[in-house]
């Protein structure tokens, strides 16, 4: 490993901590001796470990801490020091208490302790106990006691690495009340790895002042002229950020719209609440068709009935009952206006095609239209069912259009959607003839899947809505079928769950037209 390269990449915090690791191995010690904040030390340790310059392990350890009195004595001195300082002549116990301001208890502890050290003489004069300094005591006054030295150490301390003197001091102090405490703690021990050690041999470069962040100040003061920049670890992962985003379903819709627009289609849109007249009757769906029943269609309670156009109503009635002027036999049953006025949530976007056809003029043809819009089906929601779903609708209104063209448009669309194998096979819809079902081969599922229905609108539909005969190619495709495999969605409810984590992390629509 290139030592110099590692050094170049060291952050100022790392540069400060690294040399200290020869002396200290715990975070509190490093904090005390580095003038860094704890969080800075922790970060530096983290980075150094990521670079394999240090090892850290965690053990349970007995540690010595300063207790309540210990912290006080560290500031104000040990009581025996205060005792000795105030003993400037032979004094009685009471006098000592008064001048030293020590408590009775402390004074009596000091008496015993100093006597054992031969620092004082205790004599009696009548009822009074008199205390005086000895030579040893005078000597002690001039220098630091080992207990005092011990208190000044940085805590917590590992009792196992104490010198014999320190062990004596520890034992002495530990006997006394609330000066020290010994506790078991989890401790992170940080040690240098061989690489870390060899790195420290370049102390000069290590302690060299480098530029970390390039700031406005640095640019202005031109310090970059004679300093080096710290190298970054360019491979180091950075935290993720959020960004503004379009809903993933809308990205798929935009793409699908672009396909039809590129093929020269005009967009259709319209109401979601429709009369049954437009949604079903105008499309020659018989009034007793099972699809009209309550369990499949959302009907509207408030408001309950809509109005339908008079001129078209007559034509639709005739075509249902006897075929009108279309050459059809019709459904041969009475057509009920009331049923046609019922309001519902559109069951297919084919209703938009019906509205569009009703407004076209012969001289404007040929024309092509598409829409991508919501449809509704009255069913309970689960992972595989939604009551709202998108349909991709298309019509080609062209006096010369034919069934072969229909297959052509569908092939073209699905090729652009990434399906290379598409087939159509016979199917049935009340408003198309011939009718077809579109199947495409799914490489993921290794099987043919249904993608939608298509056909040529029946003359009963076109003659009634357009007012003249003209083939109209039409199709209705499910959006979910194509968007689900792309986004690898397991549950259709994900389209409207709005889970921010999912929305934020969803990939873009990347499919390109082929």
């Amino acid at each position, binding site marked *: 490993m290139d030592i110099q390269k590692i050094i170049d990449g060291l952050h100022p915090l790392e540069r400060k901590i690294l040399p200290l690791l020869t002396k200290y191995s715990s975070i509190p010690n490093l904090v005390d001796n580095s003038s860094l904040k704890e969080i800075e030390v922790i970060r530096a340790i983290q980075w150094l470990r990521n670079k394999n310059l240090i090892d850290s392990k965690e053990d349970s350890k007995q540690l010595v801490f300063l207790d309540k009195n210990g912290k006080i004595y560290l500031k104000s001195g040990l009581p025996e020091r205060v005792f000795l300082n105030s003993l400037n002549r032979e004094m009685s116990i009471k006098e000592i208490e008064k001048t030293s301001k020590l408590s009775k208890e402390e004074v009596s502890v000091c008496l015993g302790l100093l006597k054992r050290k031969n620092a004082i003489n205790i004599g009696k004069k009548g009822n009074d106990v008199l205390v005086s300094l000895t030579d040893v005591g005078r000597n002690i006054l001039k220098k630091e006691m080992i207990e005092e030295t011990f208190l000044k150490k940085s805590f917590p301390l590992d009792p196992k690495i104490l010198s014999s003197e320190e062990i004596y001091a520890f034992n002495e102090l530990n006997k006394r009340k609330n000066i020290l405490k010994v506790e078991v703690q989890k401790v992170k021990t940080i040690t240098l790895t061989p690489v870390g050690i060899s790195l420290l041999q370049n102390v000069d470069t290590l302690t060299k002042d480098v530029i970390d962040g390039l700031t406005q100040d640095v640019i202005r003061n031109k310090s970059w002229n004679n300093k080096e920049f710290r190298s970054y670890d360019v491979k180091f992962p950075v935290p993720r950020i959020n960004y503004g985003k379009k809903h993933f379903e809308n990205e798929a819709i935009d793409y699908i719209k672009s396909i039809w627009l590129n093929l020269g289609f005009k967009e259709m849109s319209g109401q979601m609440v429709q009369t049954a007249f437009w949604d079903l009757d105008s499309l020659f769906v018989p009034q007793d068709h099972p699809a009209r029943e*309550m369990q499949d269609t959302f009907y509207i309670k408030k408001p309950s009935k809509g109005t339908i156009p008079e001129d078209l109503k007559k034509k639709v009635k005739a075509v249902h009952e006897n075929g009108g002027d279309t050459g059809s036999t019709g459904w041969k049953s009475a057509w009920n206006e009331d049923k046609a006025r019922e309001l519902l949530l559109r069951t297919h976007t084919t209703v938009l095609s019906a509205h569009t056809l009703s407004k076209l003029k012969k001289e404007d043809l040929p024309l092509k239209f598409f829409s991508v819009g919501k449809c509704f089906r009255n069913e309970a929601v689960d992972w595989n069912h939604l009551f709202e779903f998108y349909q991709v609708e298309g019509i080609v209104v062209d006096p010369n259009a034919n069934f072969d063209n229909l297959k052509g448009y569908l092939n073209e669309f699905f090729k652009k959607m990434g399906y290379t194998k598409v087939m159509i096979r016979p199917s049935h819809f009340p408003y198309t003839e011939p009718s077809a079902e579109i199947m495409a081969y799914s490489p993921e599922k290794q099987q043919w899947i249904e993608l939608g229905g298509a056909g040529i609108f029946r003359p009963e539909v076109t003659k009634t809505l357009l007012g003249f005969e003209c083939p109209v190619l039409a199709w209705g495709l499910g959006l979910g079928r194509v968007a689900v495999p792309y986004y690898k969605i397991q549950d259709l409810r994900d389209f409207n769950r709005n889970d921010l984590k999912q929305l934020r992390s969803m990939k873009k629509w990347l499919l390109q037209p082929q």
Partner: protein
Amino acid sequence: MPTVKYNKKSLMELLGRKVSDEVLSNRINYLGANCEGVDENEVTVEVFPNRPDLLSEQGLARALSSFMDIKLGFKKYDVKKSGVKVVVDKSVKGIRPFTACAIVKGLKLTDEKIKELIQIQEKLHITYGRNRKKAAIGIYPLEHIKTPIYYKALHPEEIKFKPLDLNKDLTGSQILAIHPTGREYGYLLDGKEKYPVFIDAKQSIMSMPPIINSNNVGKIAVTTKDVFIECSGFEFDYLHTCLNIIVTALADMGGHIYSVDLSYPDKKHVTPELSGRELKLDVEYVNKILGLELKESDVKKYLGRMGHDYKNKKALVPNYRADILHPIDLVEDIAIAHGYENFKGTLSEFSTVAQEKPISIFKNQLRSILIGLGLIEVKNYHLTNKDNQSKLMNYNIDLVELENSVTQEYTVLRAWVTPNLMETLRYNKHYEYPQNIFEIGTVFKLDDSYDTGVKETDRLAIGLCGSDANFTKIKQILDVIAEALELKYDLTETEHGSFIKGRVARVLLSNSKIAYVGELHPQVLMNWGIEMPVAVLELNVTELFNLMNFPNDKVEVTEHSKKTVSKKESKKQKPVHKKVHSKPKKKSKR
């Protein structure tokens, strides 16, 4: 659509040829039904409602036989006269006015065959018969019946017979009240003073359609050789087709068809009639629709594959086909016979000009502004409930209500989008903040001036949620939108139950109220269990779009459904671009 299980062995016998499972499944799919699977004994097929004739094994085999070039063309059925008369009494008028009847003799029934017969009858009842409402079928052993047969309506208490599988005489009303089939289908006779019955010359009640047969006279057994069949309902032609489907299946089972003389008060019919129906069909028309170059002989061959004959530009269509309403239906049959797989798929040659809806473009422009601000787009359902729209928002609003939703949570259409944003924020409570979201979608309001009584407009709702979400932050976004669209808006103070008093405003553009902006009230936040401030903007995109006065489209959502646009409203649509207001006269007005 019904799924039917066919016995594979008898299907092969009827076809007179052994075919592999793969070929069988492929041919069924390309014939116009959906083969769901073939196993050792059974073939499972979803039959589309336009081909009830495929519901029987015999019908499917007949169609496959011609489709696979085993036996091409129109299949002739010999119909002899039985001399049996059915008298239709005028009393059935207004109740269940029509019947079509036939007799089939010489059946060799087994338990298996009887089961099959019941299956055909049941599938026809469910599909073509619309659950017996439109057509109900009765089959009776002829031996117990003394002809002529009468079809008439009697008072429920006058009707007394042992219904199928019950050894006890019941009256008409008792059958509807007690018998399981009576309870299931009794609603079909709801409100009728009299119930229809078939009754023979001995005055034995044969059945009470569309409910049930008599146990004595109307029960088929393995010993039964000759049967009387009736179809009852409301349209004669419809019933006749239904009858034809059954009798041809029985003939293919080995029976011989005999006709019955129907005597209506004003008319006589002889049913069944199986000699075919002629329909004019031009080869040119076929080629124009299909984009093929077929010759007359091709058309004849293809129609033959689908069981029709073709002679002198006329097709002869079997009487059991319910789906041939118009020559276009024969064109589809020709396409099927040609094979959908054999169409090449060519695009039209003409060119057309594409046009995206201007409001679609506008909505995407709004999206890009908001995405640039770091907002996430969400999408909620249009269906919701009153609590979410009103109660939790502390705001009363009139809603479009659904009649019959299967889910309690979704009973109305949304009138505003902000409650949906609250739902989204509630769902995402465990994720990091800030959560800044927006949605563009449709809202629904009651409005008599529309054909549907409902006005639909597009809205944009923005929700900022996080510790620093406040009025300033949301107004900054409003300013960004206004700047990007070159709009000059005004604000007026307002009150709104969902917002903190004094921290909510209406946004005005050319005196039209186009948006609300404000901080949501903590009570509303608590109602939703959200413990973070939320600032909201809800903007009427449709109205804004109209006010923007784009050169192209004006009112796109309403163009075909609005009854009349009032003068007042059209006046409102003044240009609002700052730059457009260059004439001093207009400026002084503002």
